[in-house]
């Protein structure tokens, strides 16, 4: 059995603990059960709608990776079927892989988890700088702003999305600075690209 947490960035983080430990109402999880060829899309009651959509898309991608014999079963929190209850307290390794997979699912790690994203976004930037992107591992996440007018009031929505088609080569511009975040293991887990304003 494999358990993945769906991040709002569209990435999946592999969970190595019991399912019952991570069933949180704000989460969307994908649970792959090899023995019954089932991928459960579990949606927490208070998980954002955007995450539910992303989860549905990721579920189909996982199905594409695992094999078309797998079926994706959406489950809303509180409406779990009996067979789902059976696996809640099993360790992910307890339902082993049947060996029918042709390839591993490509899960990029490290990724911009919701926890890391909140940490970065909640730390105020130095005056005179605006955040343009975040590098986590080998991935670049762009910050996109969309503006809309609602009854004359400007509503700004900020989203962070992974960019997959960066131009190859060396990128250098003197109008940019950077801020580094180092985790508790002494490793760089994020580099924010800051534009001078």
């Amino acid at each position, binding site marked *: 059995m494999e358990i993945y947490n769906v991040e709002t960035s569209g990435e999946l983080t592999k969970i190595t603990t019991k399912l019952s430990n991570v069933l949180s109402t704000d989460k969307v999880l994908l649970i792959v059960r090899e023995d019954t060829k089932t991928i459960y899309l579990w949606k927490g009651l208070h998980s954002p709608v955007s995450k539910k959509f992303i989860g549905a898309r990721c579920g189909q991608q996982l199905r594409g990776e695992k094999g078309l014999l797998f079926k994706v079963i959406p489950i809303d929190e509180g409406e779990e079927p009996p067979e789902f209850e059976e696996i809640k307290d099993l360790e992910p390794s307890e339902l082993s892989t049947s060996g029918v997979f042709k390839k591993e699912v490509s899960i990029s790690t490290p990724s911009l988890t919701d926890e890391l994203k909140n940490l970065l976004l909640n*730390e105020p930037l130095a005056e005179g700088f605006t955040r343009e992107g975040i590098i*986590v591992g080998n991935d670049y996440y762009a910050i996109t702003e969309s503006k809309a007018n609602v009854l004359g009031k400007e509503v700004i929505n900020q989203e962070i999305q992974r960019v997959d088609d960066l131009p190859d*080569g*060396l990128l250098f511009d*003197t109008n940019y600075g*950077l*801020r*580094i975040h*180092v985790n508790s293991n002494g490793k760089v*887990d994020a580099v924010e690209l800051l534009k001078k304003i």
Partner: protein
Amino acid sequence: MAQEILDKFKEDPPEGYIREGIIIPPDYYAVIEKKTTIMGKESVKREIEKAENLPQGFIFSPDYTPRILIENGKVVAIEILKKK
């Protein structure tokens, strides 16, 4: 693998900047200056070494600019450049 990437930064940094380090996520490689004196003559050798035990938290200074190396659409390394 890391050495292959570091070798791509053998050329001098852009004019007006000095290289202080290179991030090959999640590792930080610091440029270390080794000074030796032979009969009053100073010789400076620069080497790049992986830095361990970086202080946890945010690190920021307005005097630094990044130069990013991208290959196959992915970020391979981030060079940390300091204004001279």
